């Protein structure tokens, strides 16, 4: 059985996704350390938010550790299905060595396209018996009635799939409903 500390890989999407995911992290104890953040290469604002979050955290927990890595963006908004598959495969070329290097105990993500290659990499490493990572997906609070595309895919690959509205729990019975958590 695993013992703490548990290393955590956090996929930070742009804008609201990053704000939401930092809120999810806000109540975690120091048992979840170090935190490895993965960002899309074109994302400017998330890095500042993350550094600010970690700085505040370091004021309470002096042993706090984190890292930041970037991978190519796997999909632009409204990109076509076919080209999305290709760009996702391209992103896996980056996310696979990164996930292999970090070998996290836990991956946390909440919906940006960036999380699909990262989670698939971790899933693959699990199949190959290299590292068994627990994949936790939290669908964004914006999703009340339908899942995002990342959600629809990762519903089948995640260990725990968390939704924040009861309608989604009804539609996706294998999901976990904890109420609003951000």
């Amino acid at each position, binding site marked *: 059985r695993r013992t703490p500390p548990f290393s955590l890989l956090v996929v930070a999407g742009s804008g609201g996704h990053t704000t939401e995911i930092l*809120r999810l992290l806000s*109540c975690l104890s120091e*048992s979840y350390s170090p935190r490895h953040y993965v960002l899309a290469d074109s994302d400017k604002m998330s890095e500042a938010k993350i550094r600010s979050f970690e700085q505040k955290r370091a004021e309470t927990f002096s042993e706090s550790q984190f890292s930041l890595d970037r991978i190519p963006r796997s999909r632009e908004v409204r990109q076509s299905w076919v080209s999305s598959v290709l760009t996702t495969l391209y992103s896996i070329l980056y996310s696979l060595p990164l996930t292999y290097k970090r070998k996290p105990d836990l991956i946390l993500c909440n919906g940006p396209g960036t999380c699909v290659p990262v989670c698939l990499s971790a899933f693959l490493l699990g199949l190959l018996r290299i590292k068994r990572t627990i994949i936790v997906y*939290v669908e964004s*609070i914006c999703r*009340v009635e*339908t899942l995002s595309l990342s959600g629809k895919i990762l519903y089948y690959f995640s260990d725990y799939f968390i939704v924040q509205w009861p309608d989604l729990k009804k539609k996706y019975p294998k999901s976990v409903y904890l*109420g*609003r958590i951000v």
Partner: protein
Amino acid sequence: FRFKDSLAEDLQGADLVISHAGAGSCLETLEKGKPLIVVINDKLMNNHQLELAKQLHRDGCVLYCNCSTLVETLQSMDLSALKPFPPGQPEKFASFLDKVFGLQ
């Protein structure tokens, strides 16, 4: 306004907020306890962004209209009927993870 980092100060000083249905705008406003009227763009009817605005309206936390009914909404609104928006609870998520990892 386009390039301001944050509207937090402006929100704090406002008595009423009129906004599009973007989740960030809605949530930031509601968390500050400000009354909110969400204006829907009819041309984007299938946008998933509407899901949150519709739910907030069902819960009685926001008023809801489109561009052509905005004036009418402003004239007949009863802001005291708006219900408060309870904050999310990230501690429930932390507790859930602790159980998953056997820390509880």
